């Protein structure tokens, strides 16, 4: 009895000791900042001699009346809607091609995947050059067809679409990998059975492949949504949110408020919105995802 108790006690101590170093860092840089951000969003930013004081919901009131916040949020929604379905669709197509019998498929895989390995900032620099007015690549091509000059990144109408194109180019190959992994785990018997049944390739894809890939699609979808809120490197390099905030995304706006205007209290309120969106996503994932598939 007492030997049993002491063994359990030792297991407890060992377990916690093993976990402790990671737990300390996680608490310090993930859990504590979440709570601190929440609390700070109810206080004012200290200015000069005036310290931080409790202001209740003032920061949130300011946010609701802030057109740039709404613009960043809407931009973010457009960015997500523009990026995610196309990159997931392309990723699926790429995976099926690379997994199939197409000639030179290892070269295809290389071409599709390479953008994923590059730093976003490098990607942004390269594309910035393409979009440059007058002598960028697109201008050259368009002027050859007699299309008048257009400043792609300098125009409110096209700037977000430009960022979306870059994001799709960068991410599709990354998502392809997840589909490829799932496809390679599928039993070849399924295709044989379908062939015996006389199913067409399209029917097989729609009735068998696609449903079997559903967990992967959900997994990719969740990651794509997280990324659409998290990856703002392009914005920093290519547009700085401009022109006139037409390409500002939520995290970029938080960065601006926090480190250009140094208004940490307002940045905290904005961060709470981002955290709320991520929390909703987590709840959604919990409700919709077949947890047995990914979290054994």
């Amino acid at each position, binding site marked *: 009895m007492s030997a049993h108790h002491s063994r359990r006690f030792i297991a407890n101590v060992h377990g916690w000791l093993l976990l402790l170093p990671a737990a300390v860092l996680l608490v310090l840089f993930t859990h504590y900042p979440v709570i601190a951000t929440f609390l700070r969003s109810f206080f004012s930013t200290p200015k000069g001699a005036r310290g931080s004081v409790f202001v209740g919901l003032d920061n949130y009131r300011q946010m609701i009346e802030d057109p740039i916040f709404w613009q960043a949020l809407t931009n973010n929604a457009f960015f997500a809607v523009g990026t995610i379905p196309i990159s997931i669709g392309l990723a699926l197509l790429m995976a099926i091609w690379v997994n199939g019998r197409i000639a030179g*498929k290892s070269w295809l895989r290389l071409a599709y995947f390479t953008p994923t390995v590059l730093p976003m900032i490098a990607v942004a620099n390269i594309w910035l050059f393409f979009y440059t007015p007058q002598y960028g690549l697109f201008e050259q091509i368009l002027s050859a067809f007699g299309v008048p000059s257009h400043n792609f990144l300098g125009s409110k109408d096209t700037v977000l679409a430009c960022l979306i194109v870059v994001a799709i180019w960068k991410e599709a190959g990354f998502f392809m990998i997840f589909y490829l992994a799932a496809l390679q785990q599928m039993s070849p018997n399924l295709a*044989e059975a379908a062939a015996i049944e006389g199913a067409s390739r399209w029917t097989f894809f729609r009735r068998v492949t696609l449903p079997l890939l559903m967990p992967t699609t959900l997994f990719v979808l969740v990651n794509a949504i997280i990324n659409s809120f998290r990856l703002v490197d392009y914005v920093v390099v290519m547009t700085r949110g401009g022109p006139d905030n037409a390409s500002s995304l939520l995290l970029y706006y938080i960065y601006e408020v926090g480190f250009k205007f140094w208004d940490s209290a307002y940045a905290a309120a904005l961060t709470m919105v981002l955290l709320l969106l991520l929390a909703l996503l987590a709840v959604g994932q919990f409700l919709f995802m077949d947890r047995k598939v990914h979290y054994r």
Partner: protein
Amino acid sequence: MVLQPSRTGLALETAAAWVLAVLWILPLFYAFWTAFHPTEFATRFQLLAPLSLQNFRNAWDAAPFSRYFFNTTVLVAMILGVQLVLCTLAAYAFARYTFWGRDVMFILVLVQLMIKPEVLLVENYRTMSALGILDTLPAIGLPYMASAFGIFLLRQTFKTIPSELEDAARVEGANALQILLKVYVPLAKPVYLAFALVSVSFHWNNFLWPLVVTNSVHSRPLTVGLQVFSSVDQGIDWSIITAATIMTTAPLLIAFLLFQRQFVQSFMRAGIR
């Protein structure tokens, strides 16, 4: 596979796949063209345009890239080293120990999969400032060192290792740490490789958080150095900027081209779990 497209179907699909591949690689091809040719050929494609390394020389001389390379290398190695140790220990605890609060702690770890450190950059900046380590390499690395992804990945792997192996080692008198190092770690080698590749390529490329916490040459990684270089030091000499871009990306790109199969398999291995 029995289910195959018709011959025309296959031809069409092959063509489409290759068009997409060419589209995908074209931007890179274009970047290489610009970097390896004199400025006047930056947007003019002539087969016999003279090749030149001058853009690289100019870029290298215009900014302290050697220091940036050094910073990034140290940073990436430091993060990976600490990650491997911390994640191994935590994953072992989750996989093989029953302790009070384990399930709650595991959920708290998974929170980081949703809320990545860069989302909390304003508050984490404050913490670094309070710790007095702003503008240092540890400040860049600290928020990432306890990686929820690494802990999760290794825990799943450790769980698949039969506990009979552990019992056998215990009979031979091995203690908990020895069992971890002699039984678990060797069996998880492919997963470690996968995690290492994902971690190195992520941190070589990471930008926003390093941009925020650094403000001098002494701690700036390549990505931030490149951004400072291309936004401040240069006007719009695209040839030099592109050369700098390729230069800073080269080590990772070369490693990727050499170990393509391992890269793809590692990302796949990391993605399945």
